[in-house]
Structure formats: C-alpha cells, structure tokens
C-alpha cells in the first residue's frame, strides 16, 4: 500500500518540522487549554441553571464536547496547517513541485503539515470522555464501542472531505488565502449536541455541513441510543463525502494552471 507508506513518511516529516519552534510549542499548549475552557465554561454556566437542555444532561453533553475536542484537534493539528501551506503554494506557483513528486498530490496537500501541540486536544478529549462516562455510570458494551469507533471514523472522513473541498475552492480563487480558517470557524457550532439547535441552524448543521453527524452520533452510539438506520446514514454520508471530494479534487487539479513562477 503505497498510500499508507506515503502517509507515514509525510507524518514523520511534519512532526520533525513542528518540533523546531519550541517557544511556539508552549504558547500553543496554553492555547489548547484555553480553547477547552471556551467550550466548558459556557456549558457549566448553562447547566448550572438547568439540569438538562433539549434532553441532554451535562455529562451527556460533555461526551459531545469530547468528540468535538478530538475532531478539532485533528482539524487544527493536521488538516488546517496543511491547507494553509498548500493554498500558499497554489498562490506562489510552487505547487508545481508537489505535482512533480511521485506521490498522490491530494494526500500531500492535505496532510503534509502538522501542529504537534494539538496532541493535547486528543489527550483532553479522551479524559473528558472517561470522566463523563464515569459520572454517567455507563459502561459501554463491546458492540457500542465498535459502533462508536466506526462512527468516529466516519466523522474523520467527513472532516477530511470538507477540507479537500475547501482546497478545491482555492484552486479557483487562489487569492483568498484564508479559506482554511473558514471551516475551523464553522466547526465551532459542533461543540454542542446537534439537537439543541433549531430552525435554519439545524438544517445547516445537518445537511450543509454535517457537524451533527460528526460530533453527536458517536456519543449517542456509545450510550446505545442510536438506531441502526442512523448508523447506516452516517456511513453513507461519509462515503458520499469522500467520493464527492475525490471527484472535486480530480476536476480541480485538471483545471490547475500554475501561477507566479
């Protein structure tokens, strides 16, 4: 599997690059904790006044936070930095050199850069999930764990596909060099259970950017509250997202005409 080997090599190279700047590492570490506080503080304020919101208790909502933190760690640690650098390459014309490399340019363009401090997000996510499950006195069964893991994989696929789509947009409007941050901003809405939102916001979060599927389904599966049909839908959405993003990528790359030089 050459794609797997390429992935491993790219990740190793990006870990080494990201360890170069040590002062930044500590700033980023602090920032990761602060971001966690932005999620938890409003939650404590709200649940301090209410035992439950839209049927979610604090501990159940914390499970959603755990998945949100995990996916955000992946987004900010791996996907956004790669997007930023690839969009920069598109602008400068140095993307030509990426195309010349004997690896899949999509892979190279989407996981070539890594921000190591985001590992703290992954650790924090696991801790939050464990604390929440403990407080809920819920011991997930093996099958619940397997389904939750499968849905997490689906979430990662959707996240990745959305970013590939953002990158495809950059091929056509290369002047917009901050596209990469847009998804990160939209993703903010995923820190709360999807059913809290109503009206237009809910439609947007379900169909336009399926954040609800990404951070709310896996905790529901872990709690054993997700129907088999919903699992099927999530898998279908993930597959479709990957397929669409690959097709969009192939079209974009065909339209690439280099730049700068």
């Amino acid at each position: 599997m050459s794609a797997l080997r390429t992935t491993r090599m790219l990740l190793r190279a990006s870990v080494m690059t990201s360890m170069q700047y040590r002062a930044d590492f500590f700033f980023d570490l602090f920032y990761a904790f602060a971001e966690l506080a932005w999620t938890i503080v409003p939650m404590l304020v709200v649940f301090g006044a209410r035992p439950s919101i839209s049927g979610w208790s604090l501990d159940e909502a914390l499970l959603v936070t755990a998945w949100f933190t995990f996916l955000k760690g992946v987004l900010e640690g791996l996907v956004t930095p790669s997007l930023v650098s690839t969009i920069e390459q598109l602008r400068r014309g140095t993307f030509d050199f990426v195309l010349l490399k004997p690896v899949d340019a999509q892979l190279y363009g989407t996981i070539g850069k890594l921000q190591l401090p985001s590992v703290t997000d992954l650790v924090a996510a696991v801790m939050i999930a464990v604390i929440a499950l403990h407080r809920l006195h819920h011991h997930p069964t093996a099958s619940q764990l397997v389904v939750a893991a499968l849905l997490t994989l689906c979430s990662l696929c959707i996240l990745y596909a959305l970013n590939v789509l953002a990158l495809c947009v950059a091929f056509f409007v290369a002047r917009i060099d901050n596209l990469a941050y847009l998804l990160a901003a939209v993703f903010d809405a995923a820190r709360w259970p999807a059913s809290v939102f109503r009206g237009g916001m809910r439609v947007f979060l379900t169909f336009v950017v399926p954040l609800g599927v990404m951070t709310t389904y896996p905790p529901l599966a872990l709690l054993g509250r997700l129907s088999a049909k919903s699992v099927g839908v999530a898998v279908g959405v993930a597959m479709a997202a990957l397929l669409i993003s690959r097709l969009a990528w192939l079209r974009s790359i065909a339209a690439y005409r280099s730049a700068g030089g």
Partner: protein
Amino acid sequence: MPGRLDRALPAMLRVGWKDALAYRGEFLVWMLTMTLPLVMLALFRAVAAEGSLGGFDASAFTAYFLAGLCVRQLASSWSIWEINREIREGALSMRLLRPIHPLWSYLCDSLAAIPMRAAISLPVALVLLYSIDGTAGEKLARDPVTLALFGVSLAQAFGIIFSISSTIGALGLYLESALGLWNIYVAFFMLLSGYLLPLALFPAWLQRVAALTPFPYLQSLPIEILVRRLPLTTMLRGLAIQSGWLVLSVSVLLLVWQRAQKRFAAYGG
C-alpha cells in the same frame, strides 16, 4: 510635522480602503470567521426557550449577541498579522523609509477597513435582529445620549485593541513568533470580554476578576451600553476606566515600538 500628517492621512486611508476593496473575497472570509456570536446566539436562544437565564430572556440574548457581533467587527484590528509578516519578510524597511511613523500607516489600514465591515455586518445584524425576534429590537438604545456614549465606547475599544495588536506585533522583534503571544491574548479575550457569553452569567468572583482586566472594556462595555439600559453613572464610570486603559495601552505601544524598532534587521529585504 503636523502639516505633513494632515496631507498624508487621507491618502493613506484611501489606500487602506482600496486595499480592503481589492481583497474583498479574503475580507469576507475573515469576517465569516468571526461568527461565533451567531453560534452562541442559537445556543442561548434554545436555552432561553425553556425559561430565562440570569435575567436574560430569548430576546435579550438575541440583542446581546447581535450587538456583540457588530462590536467585534467594528472594533477590531489585525495589525499584528501585518506587522508580523512585514518583520519576517523585511518589508518593514519600506515603511521605516517613509517620512511618517509606521504606526500611522498601520492605524490607517485598520481604520480604513471599518466602513466595509460596517457595510456588511450592520445590515446582517439588523435583518437577523428583526427576523429572529421582533421584540429584540426594543432592547436597543434609541436616545441620542446613549448612542453617542456607545460611539465613544466603540472608538475607545478600537484604540485599545489596535494598541494591543500592534504592541504584540512589535514584540515580534524580540520573540520567535508574536503569533503565539497573540493567541494567548485571544484566549483571554474570548473568556473575559463578554464575547463568548455575557459576563453577567459568570459567577461573581469571575466577574470581579474580569473587571480588573482591560477585556470587558473591549467588548462587553459597548454592547451593554447599547442593549442593557445601564444607568448613566455606570456608563460614564465604564467609559472613564476605558479611557484609562486606552492611555495605558497607547503608552505601552509607543514605548515598545521605540525600543523594538532598533532591533529591526530587515531580513530578506
């Protein structure tokens, strides 16, 4: 050299305005990344649908977060990004060559972006205000005195934010990367300014801590003047403290800039 400045400022403002216009796509994306108040709005409205929270009902939340959206858009400055980039690329030497202090040109860039921010954010906020909740509009202050005080608070908030942003940018001449420090500032801003949620919902001790920092004066004060019907004395006291922070932050900026400038080595240029 006041005469020279008189002639240069309008020209620099025009350049900044044209710049914002030329990069309108990018500009719009930056604006879209500051939509967290809309997420918080949707969330707190859902919470308030089951009963009011800390004195805020659904329409109070609506007015608060939409005002927050506008304040954040209008009183913001991204000079840190500009300064950081120019230090790294050596382009700062071009600014230093001009017969006008570089801070003036950064200030003009930030100021010139405001009309465009206003042109986009104000209509969006007003439409949302009246379409989401007809009664939310009644929360807005209408008397001219309060509106004037709101204007003052907004202008002072802009001044403080520009100073902090530029100071951290200038610190880039000492630090490996000023952006890490900027992130720490943003982290505190989010929590303590009232951007993420109204400070009134915080426990009392945290409100007291926040009041000792400049952060509530960057966001919470203008919003509350506009939508919370504060007594006149409270508004004036807030504005006086805000002025104090403005003087302090401008002084720090000038001091840091003067010292840091000597370390500039014009890489690359």
